[in-house]
C-alpha cells in the first residue's frame, strides 16, 4: 500500500512538474523574444 502511494505521488509530481517546467521555459523564451520587437509587429497585440 505504501509502495503504491509512493509510485502514485511520483507519477503526479513528474506529470505536473514536467508541465510547469515546460510552461516556464516557453513563457521565458517568449518574453525574451517579444521584448526586442516593436508592438505593431506582433500579431497578437
Amino acid at each position, binding site marked *: 500500500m505504501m509502495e503504491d502511494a509512493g*509510485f*502514485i505521488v511520483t*507519477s*503526479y509530481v*513528474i506529470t505536473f512538474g514536467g508541465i510547469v517546467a515546460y510552461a516556464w521555459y516557453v513563457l521565458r523564451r517568449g518574453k525574451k523574444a*517579444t521584448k526586442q520587437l516593436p508592438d505593431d509587429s506582433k500579431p497578437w497585440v
Partner: protein
Amino acid sequence: MADTATGRTTATHATRILGIVTLAGVAWLILFGLILSPADKNQGESVRILYLHAPSAWLAYLAFIVTAIASALYLFPKQHSLGWDRLAGASAEIGVLFMGMTLVVGMLWGRLTWGVFWRWDARLTTTAFLLVTYIGYLAVRRLGGTPEQRAKRSAVLALLAVLEIPLVHFSVELWRGLHQDASVLRPNGDVELDGLMLFTLLSGIVTFTLMYAWLVIHRTRTLTAEDMLDDVGLELALEERRRESIPHTIEEKGALLS
C-alpha cells in the same frame, strides 16, 4: 497586465483566462484522481496513475495530428504560410513532452501492476518508436537553411510520422501483448469504466486538452517572435555588409578610381 498592454509577453487577456480555467481543471483532476474516485477492484490504487497516463497519451496523439494537419496546410496550398509551420513545430514539441510523460508514468503503473517497469510489448515498443520519430522531427527542424526550407522538409516528415499513430493505438488489437486493451476508445464503441472513474478520466482529458491549447498558443507566438528577430538580424547584417562595401573616404574613392 502592464506587460500585456505593451506586448512584452506572449500573453493576452484570452490566454490568461484560459490559463486560470486550466489551473482550476488541474486542481479538480488532482482532487478526483487522488481522493474522490474509488480504487479499482482489479488494479487497486494504481488506477489513479491512469488518470494521468491516458490523458497524456491522448494529448500526444492530438498534438501529432495537429502537427500533420498544420504541415499539410503549409505544404499543399499555393500560398505557403509559415504560420502553419510554426504551429506544427509548437504542437510537435508539446506532443513529445506528453508522449515522454506517458511512457514514464506508464512505467510506474507497469511496475505496480505487472511487477516490471518495461517489457518489449507491442504497445510499449510502438509508443517508444513514435516518441523517437518525433524527437527526430524536432531535430530536423533545427537543421540549417531558410525558414521555407525548414518548413518544407519538416512538413513532409510530419505527414509520414503521423501514419504511426493508428499503429500505436491498434497495436493492442493487432498483437497479443501485456498492455491492456483500450478502456474508452474501443473498436466496438463499448466503455469499460463506470461512474466516478469514467468521470475522472474524462476530466483529465478535458484538462489536458485545455493545457495543450494554452501551451500551443504561447509556443507558436514565441516561434513567431523568434523568426521575426532572425529576419531583423539578417536585414541588419546585410545593411552592415552594404555599408562596408561603399567607399567612405577620399583615399578609398581615389584608390578605386586609379
